[in-house]
Protein backbone atom coordinates (compact mmCIF):
# COMPACT_ATOMS: atom_id res chain seq x y z
CA UNK A 1 0.00 0.00 0.00
CA UNK A 2 1.20 3.53 -0.77
CA UNK A 3 0.40 6.77 0.99
CA UNK A 4 2.05 10.10 0.25
CA UNK A 5 2.60 13.52 1.70
CA UNK A 6 3.78 16.57 -0.22
CA UNK A 7 5.52 19.52 1.34
CA UNK A 8 6.80 22.20 -1.03
CA UNK A 9 9.10 20.40 -3.46
CA UNK A 10 9.41 17.22 -1.41
CA UNK A 11 7.14 14.23 -1.69
CA UNK A 12 7.32 11.49 0.95
CA UNK A 13 6.10 8.08 -0.19
CA UNK A 14 5.22 5.70 2.65
CA UNK A 15 5.02 2.03 1.64
CA UNK A 16 3.55 -0.80 3.69
CA UNK A 17 3.04 -4.53 3.17
CA UNK A 18 5.45 -6.31 0.82
CA UNK A 19 7.51 -4.78 -1.99
CA UNK A 20 8.34 -7.58 -4.45
CA UNK A 21 8.09 -8.12 -8.22
CA UNK A 22 4.32 -8.58 -7.98
CA UNK A 23 3.54 -5.45 -5.93
CA UNK A 24 6.25 -3.26 -7.54
CA UNK A 25 4.27 -3.01 -10.80
CA UNK A 26 1.26 -1.27 -9.23
CA UNK A 27 3.42 0.86 -6.93
CA UNK A 28 5.57 2.01 -9.85
CA UNK A 29 2.49 3.14 -11.78
CA UNK A 30 1.12 5.16 -8.88
CA UNK A 31 4.56 6.60 -8.08
CA UNK A 32 5.14 7.78 -11.65
CA UNK A 33 1.76 9.51 -11.61
CA UNK A 34 2.67 11.31 -8.37
CA UNK A 35 6.16 12.42 -9.39
CA UNK A 36 5.06 13.56 -12.85
CA UNK A 37 4.58 16.92 -11.10
CA UNK A 38 7.77 18.73 -12.17
CA UNK A 39 7.72 20.97 -9.09
CA UNK A 40 8.86 17.95 -7.06
CA UNK A 41 12.63 17.90 -6.72
CA UNK A 42 13.03 15.54 -3.75
CA UNK A 43 11.54 12.07 -3.36
CA UNK A 44 11.71 10.41 0.05
CA UNK A 45 10.86 6.72 0.42
CA UNK A 46 9.67 5.81 3.90
CA UNK A 47 10.01 2.03 4.10
CA UNK A 48 9.78 1.78 7.89
CA UNK A 49 6.32 0.13 7.68
CA UNK A 50 7.35 -2.29 4.93
CA UNK A 51 7.20 -5.94 6.05
CA UNK A 52 9.34 -7.30 3.20
CA UNK A 53 11.42 -6.15 0.25
CA UNK A 54 13.58 -8.01 -2.25
CA UNK A 55 15.70 -6.81 -5.17
CA UNK A 56 12.59 -5.89 -7.17
CA UNK A 57 12.27 -2.98 -4.73
CA UNK A 58 15.90 -2.05 -5.43
CA UNK A 59 15.14 -1.99 -9.17
CA UNK A 60 12.07 0.18 -8.59
CA UNK A 61 14.09 2.69 -6.53
CA UNK A 62 16.88 2.80 -9.13
CA UNK A 63 14.28 3.61 -11.79
CA UNK A 64 12.82 6.44 -9.72
CA UNK A 65 16.34 7.71 -8.92
CA UNK A 66 17.09 7.96 -12.64
CA UNK A 67 13.86 9.88 -13.23
CA UNK A 68 14.60 12.35 -10.44
CA UNK A 69 18.25 12.71 -11.46
CA UNK A 70 17.20 13.68 -14.99
CA UNK A 71 15.49 16.77 -13.56
CA UNK A 72 18.27 17.52 -11.09
CA UNK A 73 16.30 16.15 -8.16
CA UNK A 74 17.30 13.80 -5.33
CA UNK A 75 16.05 10.65 -3.64
CA UNK A 76 16.32 9.63 0.01
CA UNK A 77 15.17 6.57 1.92
CA UNK A 78 14.23 5.75 5.50
CA UNK A 79 14.24 1.97 6.18
CA UNK A 80 13.82 1.51 9.92
CA UNK A 81 16.71 -0.95 9.93
CA UNK A 82 16.47 -4.75 9.71
CA UNK A 83 16.48 -6.90 6.59
CA UNK A 84 15.54 -4.06 4.26
CA UNK A 85 18.46 -1.96 5.46
CA UNK A 86 20.81 -4.94 4.92
CA UNK A 87 19.50 -5.30 1.37
CA UNK A 88 20.05 -1.60 0.70
CA UNK A 89 23.65 -1.92 1.98
CA UNK A 90 24.24 -5.00 -0.19
CA UNK A 91 22.96 -3.24 -3.31
CA UNK A 92 25.26 -0.24 -2.84
CA UNK A 93 22.23 2.00 -3.27
CA UNK A 94 23.28 4.19 -0.32
CA UNK A 95 26.06 5.51 -2.56
CA UNK A 96 23.48 7.36 -4.63
CA UNK A 97 20.42 7.49 -2.38
CA UNK A 98 20.63 9.34 0.93
CA UNK A 99 19.83 7.34 4.07
CA UNK A 100 17.47 9.19 6.38
CA UNK A 101 17.28 8.21 10.03
CA UNK A 102 14.09 6.98 11.68
CA UNK A 103 11.75 9.85 12.55
CA UNK A 104 10.12 10.01 15.96
CA UNK A 105 6.39 9.47 15.39
CA UNK A 106 3.94 10.85 17.92
Amino acid at each position, binding site marked *: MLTHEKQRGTITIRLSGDLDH*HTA*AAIRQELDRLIADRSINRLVFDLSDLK*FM*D*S*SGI*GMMIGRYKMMARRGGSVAVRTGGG*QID*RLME*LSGLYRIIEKVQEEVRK
Partner: protein
Amino acid sequence: MNIINEMRVDFLSCPENEAFARMVISAFVLPLNPTLEQLGDIKTSVSEAVTNAVVHGYRDCVGTIRMKASLSEAGELTVEVIDNGCGIRDVQEARQPFFTTMEAFERSGMGFTVMESFMDAVQVFSSPGQGTTVRMKKQICAPREPAYQA
Protein backbone atom coordinates in the same frame (compact mmCIF):
# COMPACT_ATOMS: atom_id res chain seq x y z
CA MET B 1 23.29 -37.39 6.45
CA ASN B 2 19.74 -38.12 7.69
CA ILE B 3 16.89 -35.88 6.71
CA ILE B 4 14.62 -35.08 9.64
CA ASN B 5 11.97 -33.11 7.73
CA GLU B 6 11.20 -32.30 4.11
CA MET B 7 8.48 -30.82 1.95
CA ARG B 8 7.64 -30.23 -1.69
CA VAL B 9 5.13 -27.78 -3.19
CA ASP B 10 4.21 -27.02 -6.81
CA PHE B 11 2.63 -23.75 -7.88
CA LEU B 12 1.98 -21.72 -11.04
CA SER B 13 4.49 -19.07 -12.04
CA CYS B 14 2.06 -16.22 -11.25
CA PRO B 15 3.63 -13.19 -9.55
CA GLU B 16 1.22 -13.48 -6.61
CA ASN B 17 2.85 -16.82 -5.79
CA GLU B 18 6.13 -15.08 -4.94
CA ALA B 19 4.54 -14.14 -1.58
CA PHE B 20 3.00 -17.62 -1.31
CA ALA B 21 6.46 -19.23 -1.64
CA ARG B 22 7.83 -16.93 1.08
CA MET B 23 4.98 -17.94 3.40
CA VAL B 24 5.53 -21.63 2.73
CA ILE B 25 9.25 -21.55 3.45
CA SER B 26 8.62 -19.44 6.57
CA ALA B 27 6.11 -22.01 7.81
CA PHE B 28 8.61 -24.83 7.21
CA VAL B 29 11.46 -23.04 8.98
CA LEU B 30 9.64 -21.37 11.92
CA PRO B 31 9.45 -24.49 14.16
CA LEU B 32 13.26 -24.47 14.15
CA ASN B 33 13.27 -21.09 15.94
CA PRO B 34 15.45 -19.26 13.47
CA THR B 35 16.62 -15.76 14.34
CA LEU B 36 14.78 -12.88 12.63
CA GLU B 37 17.86 -12.35 10.49
CA GLN B 38 18.02 -16.01 9.41
CA LEU B 39 14.31 -16.01 8.56
CA GLY B 40 14.70 -12.77 6.60
CA ASP B 41 17.68 -14.20 4.71
CA ILE B 42 15.80 -17.35 3.75
CA LYS B 43 12.57 -15.57 2.74
CA THR B 44 14.47 -13.03 0.63
CA SER B 45 16.57 -15.70 -1.09
CA VAL B 46 13.49 -17.80 -1.89
CA SER B 47 11.75 -14.69 -3.19
CA GLU B 48 14.67 -13.98 -5.52
CA ALA B 49 14.81 -17.55 -6.86
CA VAL B 50 11.05 -17.76 -7.42
CA THR B 51 10.96 -14.32 -9.04
CA ASN B 52 13.72 -15.41 -11.43
CA ALA B 53 11.59 -18.40 -12.45
CA VAL B 54 8.52 -16.17 -12.95
CA VAL B 55 10.28 -13.33 -14.78
CA HIS B 56 12.95 -15.20 -16.75
CA GLY B 57 12.24 -18.94 -16.78
CA TYR B 58 8.63 -18.51 -17.84
CA ARG B 59 9.08 -15.09 -19.44
CA ASP B 60 6.36 -15.43 -22.10
CA CYS B 61 4.21 -18.13 -20.57
CA VAL B 62 2.95 -19.63 -17.34
CA GLY B 63 4.50 -22.82 -16.01
CA THR B 64 4.99 -24.79 -12.83
CA ILE B 65 7.55 -23.92 -10.19
CA ARG B 66 8.53 -26.57 -7.66
CA MET B 67 9.98 -25.66 -4.29
CA LYS B 68 11.54 -28.38 -2.18
CA ALA B 69 13.03 -27.96 1.27
CA SER B 70 14.67 -30.31 3.70
CA LEU B 71 16.35 -30.12 7.06
CA SER B 72 19.24 -32.42 7.94
CA GLU B 73 20.27 -33.85 11.32
CA ALA B 74 23.16 -31.39 11.22
CA GLY B 75 20.69 -28.46 11.28
CA GLU B 76 21.26 -27.48 7.67
CA LEU B 77 18.36 -26.26 5.52
CA THR B 78 18.39 -27.06 1.81
CA VAL B 79 15.95 -25.27 -0.49
CA GLU B 80 15.53 -25.99 -4.19
CA VAL B 81 13.55 -23.83 -6.62
CA ILE B 82 12.99 -25.69 -9.88
CA ASP B 83 11.40 -24.60 -13.14
CA ASN B 84 10.99 -26.17 -16.58
CA GLY B 85 11.32 -22.83 -18.34
CA CYS B 86 13.72 -21.52 -20.95
CA GLY B 87 16.93 -22.16 -19.01
CA ILE B 88 20.04 -19.99 -18.73
CA ARG B 89 22.46 -19.73 -21.65
CA ASP B 90 25.49 -18.78 -19.52
CA VAL B 91 25.09 -19.41 -15.79
CA GLN B 92 28.38 -17.73 -14.86
CA GLU B 93 27.36 -14.58 -16.71
CA ALA B 94 23.90 -14.62 -15.11
CA ARG B 95 25.42 -14.82 -11.63
CA GLN B 96 27.47 -11.65 -12.11
CA PRO B 97 26.25 -8.82 -9.85
CA PHE B 98 23.90 -6.44 -11.66
CA PHE B 99 23.83 -8.56 -14.84
CA THR B 100 20.31 -8.64 -16.27
CA THR B 101 18.71 -9.37 -19.62
CA MET B 102 15.72 -7.21 -18.66
CA GLU B 103 17.06 -3.78 -17.76
CA ALA B 104 14.13 -2.13 -19.56
CA PHE B 105 11.82 -3.77 -17.02
CA GLU B 106 13.76 -2.26 -14.09
CA ARG B 107 15.27 -5.57 -13.04
CA SER B 108 18.25 -4.82 -10.81
CA GLY B 109 20.22 -7.94 -11.72
CA MET B 110 20.86 -8.58 -8.04
CA GLY B 111 18.92 -11.81 -7.53
CA PHE B 112 21.88 -14.20 -7.42
CA THR B 113 24.01 -11.72 -5.44
CA VAL B 114 21.29 -11.61 -2.78
CA MET B 115 21.03 -15.41 -2.65
CA GLU B 116 24.81 -15.80 -2.43
CA SER B 117 25.06 -13.18 0.33
CA PHE B 118 22.18 -14.38 2.47
CA MET B 119 22.61 -18.16 2.12
CA ASP B 120 25.70 -20.24 2.91
CA ALA B 121 25.90 -21.86 -0.53
CA VAL B 122 24.12 -21.53 -3.88
CA GLN B 123 24.29 -23.94 -6.82
CA VAL B 124 22.64 -23.28 -10.19
CA PHE B 125 21.94 -26.06 -12.69
CA SER B 126 20.58 -24.88 -16.03
CA SER B 127 20.89 -25.04 -19.79
CA PRO B 128 18.82 -23.57 -22.64
CA GLY B 129 15.49 -25.34 -23.01
CA GLN B 130 16.17 -27.56 -19.99
CA GLY B 131 14.83 -25.44 -17.14
CA THR B 132 16.69 -24.25 -14.05
CA THR B 133 17.31 -25.60 -10.56
CA VAL B 134 18.62 -23.30 -7.85
CA ARG B 135 19.80 -25.14 -4.73
CA MET B 136 20.57 -23.10 -1.63
CA LYS B 137 21.82 -24.19 1.78
CA LYS B 138 21.90 -22.48 5.14
CA GLN B 139 22.90 -23.67 8.62
CA ILE B 140 20.07 -22.60 10.87
CA CYS B 141 20.27 -24.61 14.03
CA ALA B 142 22.46 -26.94 16.01
CA PRO B 143 22.56 -30.63 15.05
CA ARG B 144 19.59 -32.56 16.45
CA GLU B 145 18.23 -36.06 16.81
CA PRO B 146 16.02 -37.33 13.97
CA ALA B 147 12.33 -37.76 14.83
CA TYR B 148 12.39 -40.99 12.84
CA GLN B 149 14.99 -43.25 11.27
CA ALA B 150 14.82 -43.13 7.46
